[in-house]
């Protein structure tokens, strides 16, 4: 099929799975960086059920893990979920398959930052606020959410 330059891509194209996609590249890198067996996830959803920030996310944590399993990098790094995760480890302590989901989230943030998706820069903070927040908050937010 020839590329139609005049049309926008469809909203929800099918994922075209190939062995290269699911065994190399993005998924492999997530596993290597996080050290987490993401293939062990069987989608029970416990991470999402207990996530205190689930109510703020457009994609729940379990689906993020699922997208990693299928190698769908773009769906993840252009989504708000990884930036809303507050690294509270609630999912990590509850995962029945022993996946440190917080570590996966950290890894995904790192990959997003490498790709130039800078979520939160120093210029975005209210100076008045910055003057009173305890330092671990400031250090944490910049380490997690910006390059």
């Amino acid at each position, binding site marked *: 099929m020839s590329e139609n330059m005049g049309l926008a891509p469809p909203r929800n194209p099918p994922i075209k799975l190939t062995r290269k996609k699911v065994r190399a590249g993005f998924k492999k890198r997530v596993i290597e960086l996080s050290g987490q067996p993401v293939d062990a996830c069987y989608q029970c959803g416990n991470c999402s059920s207990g996530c205190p920030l689930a109510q703020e996310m457009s994609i729940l944590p379990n689906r993020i893990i699922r997208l990693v399993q299928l190698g769908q990098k773009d769906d993840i790094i252009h989504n708000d979920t990884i930036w809303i995760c507050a690294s509270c480890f609630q999912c990590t*302590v509850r995962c029945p398959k022993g996946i440190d989901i917080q570590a996966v989230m950290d890894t995904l943030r790192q990959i997003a930052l490498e790709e130039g998706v800078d979520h939160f820069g120093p210029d975005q903070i209210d100076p008045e606020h910055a003057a009173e927040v305890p330092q671990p908050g400031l250090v944490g937010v910049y380490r997690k959410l910006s390059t």
Partner: protein
Amino acid sequence: MAKVAYYPGCALKERSSHLDRSARDATVKLGFELDELDTWTCCGAVPPVSKERIMNLIAPSRILKNVRDSGSDVLITICDFCYNTLKRTNYSIRTDEIIRKRINTFLADDTPEREYLEKDNSQWVDYKGEVKVIHLMEYLRDELGYKQITENLKRSLKGLKLAPYYGCVMLRPQNEIQLDDPENPSIIEDFISALDAQPVKYPYRTECCGSYLSISSPDASTRLCYRILNSAINKGADAIVVSCPLCFYNLDSRQKAIAEAYQDFKPIPIFYFTQLLSVALGVEYGRQGFEKHYVDVTPILDKIGTSSGKGDEE
């Protein structure tokens, strides 16, 4: 007086100095001194994103190595972020040989480290995680014993209903922190009981307050704090007890935004556990830094002991 190595961390030196001072005052009353490290740096607040980022482990590793080299085998911290970062760094060094080697190679090449070596003229010894990182509350529970607190009470907190708030990083990840059961902890409840006050159980005590999202997504944090505070209030709490500077900040100062957003909301005072300990052990009023609180704590102080609100020690 016995001295125990102490890492205050950045927050306690400035914005959360009331946590630091009340801890020092109280521990003296209990017969030991928090001995601040001669030199220390920021721990990094959060452990590295991945094992690849070994650099983020250098600062906390250096702190721990210095503690060991100064002859201490225990290091007390109070800030939950410092506690989590130092303890998890130590855990990585203890359990991952590759990380241990890489960190020590780096530390050995480090310039200030060389000066130190020349001065000391001693052989380089790899840091293998020998130091035990311990939270002040953990020290009170396990090393000193909560009984010692009860026996030294000077002011009565009887009748005061206090809701413990654990937050995230004091308990989790459990396999590395091992402080208490992450789903059903009791260390703060038992501390409250040791002060002769009444602990209040409520379902949100281990739910996240939003942590650093307070900066990047303040509204999300406000919503979370409201759920936590409201849950404690509904269970009859007079005040909430925390140990983490960020938890304190979020739960205390967010009440301004909460009051604006939720009409029915009634403010509730937030205390560092050390402030209550300081008061209960008879440290004079005025040294606890209550003036740094957003929510007025006077109603609680009025309920305590002689309730004069004045220094009544000796």
